[in-house]
């Protein structure tokens, strides 16, 4: 019962093991500078993809403004470290909470809208955030903020990534997560079964925004520089590509797709443009030939694949 099942202990050991293995490789300098950048991106992309999947894949609300939440997290966290001299942990927390708050504010009115109208409204919201950043001198306008200290270290990144995935996974496999799945499957029936669908749509949106903001804070404190153009809707589309390719409603799918895309990006560094053409073609092909994505809504578990609606034992088992 509870935390101390053998499976949980095994998973815990694997998580700790990966941490120390990578830490050792970094210490020994076996991982190059270039690989380090991609390692950090990988973690950030995993956070972005899993949190967007919570909104799009598990709750069924097509939102195209994830870059906006990322921007809020990045800017607010940066203001706290650079302008106000606060510790990184506090900055990350406040950045994520600010994004979550934006999630509530934008979610409450817009989540009433039907599928494609919601998509457009959230896309518009992301562009408004970006437009505001351009117009606020305090955060550097279009030039953005430079010289952000590199506070996102491997321990921070790894801890936050694991935290995000485990939190989302635990959420989905609870009665609250099932309520979100019910909204996705049939909103009218969900409401008729006593579920406050508005509450759960906004909740999923807010949680997704929170982790999107977290990813933004981590991003800002690794890459020295944030600019409004970093967070355009093309970035929201990039995240969506990961979610769709991995499988809407599959957390492991999102993790795998985020990791795979980051790795392919690194390998095909010189073919950056062609690579994007291929992703785009892949996105169309997947929708036509395998709309369920790589993993469908299945999860990769310790006992191979289980045909569950994403509501069951995920990567970490239980």
């Amino acid at each position, binding site marked *: 019962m509870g935390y101390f099942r053998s499976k949980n202990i095994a998973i815990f050991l694997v998580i700790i093991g990966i941490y120390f293995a990578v830490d050792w490789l970094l210490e020994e300098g076996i991982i190059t500078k270039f690989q380090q950048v991609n390692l950090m991106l990988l973690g950030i992309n995993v956070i972005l993809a899993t949190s967007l999947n919570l909104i799009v894949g598990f709750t069924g609300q097509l939102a195209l403004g994830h870059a906006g939440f990322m921007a809020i997290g990045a800017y607010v966290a940066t203001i706290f470290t650079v302008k106000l001299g606060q510790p990184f942990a506090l900055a990350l927390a406040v950045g994520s909470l600010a994004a979550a708050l934006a999630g509530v504010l934008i979610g409450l009115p817009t989540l009433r809208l039907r599928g494609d109208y919601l998509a457009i409204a959230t896309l518009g919201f992301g562009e408004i955030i970006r437009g505001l950043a351009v117009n606020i001198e305090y955060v550097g306008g279009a030039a953005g903020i430079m010289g952000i200290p590199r506070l996102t270290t491997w321990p921070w990144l790894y801890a936050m990534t694991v935290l995000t995935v485990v939190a989302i996974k635990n959420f989905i496999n609870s009665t609250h997560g099932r309520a979100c799945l019910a909204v996705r499957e049939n909103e*009218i029936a969900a409401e008729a079964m006593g579920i406050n669908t508005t509450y759960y749509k906004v909740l999923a949106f807010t949680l997704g925004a929170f982790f999107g903001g977290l990813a933004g804070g981590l991003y800002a404190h690794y890459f020295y520089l944030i600019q409004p153009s970093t967070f355009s809707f093309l970035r929201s589309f990039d995240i969506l590509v990961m979610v769709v390719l991995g499988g809407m409603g599959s957390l492991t799918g999102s993790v795998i797709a985020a990791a795979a895309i980051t790795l392919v990006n690194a390998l095909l560094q010189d073919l950056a443009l062609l690579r994007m053409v291929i992703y785009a073609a892949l996105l169309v092909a997947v929708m036509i030939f395998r709309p369920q994505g790589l993993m469908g809504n299945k999860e990769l578990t310790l006992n191979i694949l289980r045909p569950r609606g994403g509501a069951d034992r995920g990567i970490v088992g239980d």
Partner: protein
Amino acid sequence: MALLETKDLTLAFGGLAAVSGVNLTIGEGELVGLIGPNGAGKTTVFNLLTGIYRPQRGDILWQGRSLVGLRPFQITQLGLARTFQNIRLFGELTVLDNIAISFHWHSRYSLLGAVLRLPSYYRHEGEMRRRAEELLELFGLKQYAQEKAKNLPYGEQRRLEIARALAARPRLLLLDEPAAGMNPQETQALMDFIRWLRQEFSLSILLIEHDMSMVMNLCERIYALDYGQVIAEGPPGEIRRHPRVIEAYLGEEVALALAGA
């Protein structure tokens, strides 16, 4: 006091009265039928009772308290659950999860409890799972527990919908054409099942049904609806002989015959 009472319930869609001046009363433990030709407004009545539509006039009283203006989930939480004419299961989810979702609003652990996997999570999830399995057992659906709901045979889907509604622990169950698409044997079995349900869960039931023999045999009282109005009310024996009911149904049959259907 009646369990549920409607007073002068009225709703029009763009000038067309779908339901007008409907007065229904359902007492504790009653099994009541709602009949009427196609388009008479039966399902609209259900949608009004469950808060999907809001009446333009009239009131719906649940143990004396008005339901008008409440959202569907609030009405369900007061003890009124339903099935749908066109089955609305959570298709991609397992049969077990379909049931568990209806237990949701009875669940007693918080968001934090879920994310941090506090002991409350394990205790209540275990409890919910056990109760869901019990219910599936009662409905003879246990062997499907891990199947996706959309993969169930039609009859089992109908049964799962009833099970799911019951999991919300209603006092009044609204069944919208539960026998649709069933053969006479299946319908007979369903009738026995509904009687048993009422006993087992001490329910009141309001039933929309097209199958006359089923309604006549099953229900204690029947409301007949035509053009959104109650044209007759009473025990099956009276309804069967009621001239306006005969007219309404005969009218439909004649119309169908003329249309060559």
